[in-house]
C-alpha cells in the first residue's frame, strides 16, 4: 500500500486547468521530490492531496485512507506544510507549535516537550517567545515546518520547505527529514532546486502544465543524465541564442 496514492486528480480555476489528471504512487519510506516549472500545478496537487483543496475529479488516499471520504482519519496521518498561506502570526513561535499540537488533540506535556525539541532543532529557541509576525521569511518557514512535525505524522507533505532557509538550518532540516525517512516515515517535498532533489530524494516526479511527465526512482527518471538536464529536456522552454541583447554591455 503506497503512502500517498493519487488517481486522476484534476482541478480547474475558472478557465485555467491547473491540474489535468495526475495519478501518482508515493511508496512508504520514500523521500519523494515533486518538481516542475512555475505554475506547473505542484501546489494545487499537494493541496488536493492534503485536504486543503477539493479536487474536481480524482481521489487521494493516504496510507489507504481516502482523504475526501474520511478526512479526519486521513489528516491524522499527515503533516502538512502548505505554501502561500499565512500563519496565526500573532502567536509566539512556541505558542504556534503548541496550538498546532493541541488542535491535533495531543496532551499538554507531550506538546511542551516536543515544542522545546523542535525549537532547538530548528535554531529558533532564542526567538521562541517573539511573535511570528516579527520573524524573517526563513524563520517563518521553519516555524511552519515545526507545526507540521509536532504530532509525529506518518507522512509529511512539504511544499517548498527550503525556500528562504539559510544553509545551516537547511542542513539541520535535511538531517531531521532523513532520520524520519530512515525510521519508516514518508516525505514528499516540492522544489525548484534540482541539485537538492537529486541529492536528497530517492523518488521524483516531474510535472508541467498540470500533467505528470515522469515519475519513479531518481535513477530511473534521470536515466544517466543529471536530473537538471533531464528536467530541461522534458519540460523544454530553454531559450537558445541571444535573448535580451540590450542587457549586454559589450
Amino acid at each position, binding site marked *: 500500500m503506497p503512502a500517498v496514492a493519487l488517481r486522476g486528480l484534476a482541478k480547474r480555476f475558472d478557465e485555467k486547468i491547473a491540474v489535468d489528471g495526475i495519478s501518482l504512487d508515493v511508496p512508504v519510506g520514500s523521500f519523494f521530490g515533486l518538481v516542475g516549472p512555475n505554475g506547473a500545478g505542484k501546489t494545487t496537487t499537494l493541496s488536493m492531496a492534503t*485536504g486543503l483543496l*477539493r479536487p474536481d475529479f480524482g481521489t487521494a488516499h493516504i496510507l489507504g485512507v481516502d482523504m475526501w471520504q474520511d478526512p479526519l482519519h486521513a489528516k491524522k496521518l499527515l503533516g502538512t506544510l502548505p505554501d502561500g498561506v499565512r500563519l496565526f502570526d*500573532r*502567536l509566539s513561535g512556541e*505558542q504556534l507549535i503548541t496550538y498546532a499540537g493541541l*488542535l*491535533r488533540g495531543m496532551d499538554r506535556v507531550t506538546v511542551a516537550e516536543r515544542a522545546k525539541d523542535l525549537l532547538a532543532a530548528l535554531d529558533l529557541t*532564542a526567538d*521562541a517567545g*517573539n511573535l511570528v509576525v516579527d520573524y524573517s521569511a526563513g524563520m517563518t518557514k521553519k516555524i511552519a515546518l515545526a507545526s507540521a512535525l509536532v504530532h509525529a505524522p506518518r507522512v509529511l507533505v512539504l511544499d517548498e520547505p527550503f525556500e528562504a532557509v539559510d544553509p545551516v538550518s537547511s542542513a539541520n532540516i535535511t538531517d531531521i527529514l532523513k532520520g524520519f525517512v530512515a525510521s519508516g516515515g514518508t516525505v514528499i517535498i516540492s522544489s525548484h532546486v534540482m541539485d537538492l532533489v537529486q541529492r536528497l530524494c530517492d523518488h521524483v516526479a516531474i510535472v508541467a502544465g498540470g500533467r505528470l511527465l515522469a515519475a519513479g526512482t531518481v535513477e530511473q527518471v534521470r536515466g544517466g543524465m543529471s536530473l537538471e538536464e533531464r528536467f530541461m529536456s522534458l519540460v523544454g522552454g530553454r531559450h537558445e541564442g541571444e535573448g535580451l541583447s540590450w542587457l549586454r554591455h559589450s
Partner: protein
Amino acid sequence: MVATLLRLKLQILGNGFRRSPWQIVGLAIGGLYGLGVLVFMLIGLILLRGADTELARTILVLAGSAAVLGWALIPIIASGIDMTLDPQRFAAFGIPQRTLMTGMALAGLVGIPGALTAILSLATVIPWWRSPQEIAAALIGALLGLAGCLLYSRCAAAWGTNLAASRRFREIGMVLLIVPIMFIGPVVSTTVQGFRHASGDLSALASALSWTPFGAPWALPADVAVGDYAGAALRVVIALAALAVVMWLWNMAMVRAMVNPPRVTGGKRSAGKLGFFNVFPATPTGAVAARTASYWFRDPRYMGSLLVVPLLPVVLYLNASRQGHYDLLLIVGPLVAFLLAWSISSDVSYDNTAFALHIATGVSGKADRWGRVIGCCVLAVPAVLVLTLGSLAISHRWDLLPGMAGTCAGVLMTGMGLASVLSARYVTPVPKPGESPFKKPPGGQGLTLAVQGLGMLVLLVLCLPQGGLMIAEVITGNHVLGWINLVAGPLIGAVLLWLGVRIGGRDIERRGPELLAQLIKNG
C-alpha cells in the same frame, strides 16, 4: 554647513517644480492663499494697536498657541509630512549632530507655512509699538514662539517616524485612532454649547494657556506693558525650559534613528510564556479559545473592538449627563454585549489563510466554533458584567437587575450563536492581518453590506424577546417581567447559541476547503 542644508532644501523644492508644472500651480495657489492670510492678519495686528492690553493679550495668546500647537501636532497626524531632510538620509555623511539639527530646524522656515509663521510672529511687535520695553519684549516673545514652532514640529516628526518604525507603536497608533472618532460627537456639541456663553471663558482660556509653553511667549509683551516683570521673567523661563526639553527629546530621537537601523523589533524573548494556552484546558476547543483570546489583545483589528468597551460608556455618560437622564445609560450593557458578540461574526475572514491550519489539522467544527465563542467570552463576560452593574449603580435602578441580567446574558449568547453561523458560512472582505482596523478593503462591498447589515437585522429580531421584555418592564414598572426575563432570556439565548454552534460547526466541516479557497482568492 547649515547654509548648505538650507540650500539643499531650497533645491529640493525647486526640483519639484521642474518635475511637474502642477507643483508650480500648487505653489502659486498656496502662495496666494498665504498672502491673503498674511494681509488679513497684518490688518488685524495693526487694528490691535488701538485695543486695550487685555484684549490684545487674549487674542495674541490664543492665536499664538494655536499656531504653535498646530506646528507640533501636524507632523504627528500627517506623519512623514516633510521628510526631505530626514535625518536617516544623512546618517551616512557623518554631519555633526548639532549642525544637522540647526539646519533641519531652520529648514522649517523654507516654504509657505514657515515663511508665513516667521513674518507673522515678528509682526506681533506691531500692537506693542508703544515703548522700547514692550517692543523688546514682543521681539523676544516672537523669537521664542517661532523657535517653539520649529523645534516642536521637528521633535514630533522625529519621534513619529521613530515610533512608526516599530510594529507595536504603529499598531497602537492605528487602534487609538478610534478614540478621536468616537469623541467627535460629544466634543463638537460641547464646544458649540461652550461658545454660546463664552467670551469670558476665552480670556480665562488665554490666561491658562499663557502659563503653558505654547502661550507663554505671546503673553510676554502684555506683562511688560502692565509692569508685571516677574511674570514676564517666569514666562521666559517656561518657554526656554520647554525648548530645552524638546531639544533634548529631539536629540534623543535623532540618535536613536541614526544608531538603530529602521525596523528594529524588540529584543529576543525566549520560550516558556504560553499565556492563555496555560489557562485553558489542553483540548482543541481550549486551544482555539486560547488563540482567539490572545488575539483580542494582540491584533489591532480586535483591539479596536476592545477599545469600544471603555469608550462607549464614557460617550453615553457624557450624553446622559448633559440631558440629565441617567436611565439612558442602561443601554450600555446590552449594547456592548451585542457589539462584542457581533465582533466574532467575521472571525474566519479575519483569520485569513491562516485558517488553513484548522483544515490541515482536521479540527472538528464543534471545537472550532466553541473555541471562538469561549475566547470571546473571556473578554465579553467581564466587560458586560462590569458595565451593566456600573450603569445600574449610576442610574440607581437596582430594581432592574434581574431583567438586565437576563437581557445581557440572552443578547450575548444569541449574538454569538448567530455569529458562529455567519463566520462559518460567509467570507467577507475585511482588513487583512496587520492592516489598520479602519481600512475598507476594496471589492465585495455589496456582499459585506448584505451579510453585515442583514445579519445585524436578524440579530436584532432574535434579541426581541429579551429586549421586548426589558422595555416592557421599564415602561410598566412591573418587575415580574424582569424575573421572567432572567429565566427566559438566557434560556432562549442558550438554545440559539447551541444551535448556532451546531450549524456553524457542521458548515465548517463540510465546506472548510471551500471557505479556504475563498479566503485564498480574497488574499
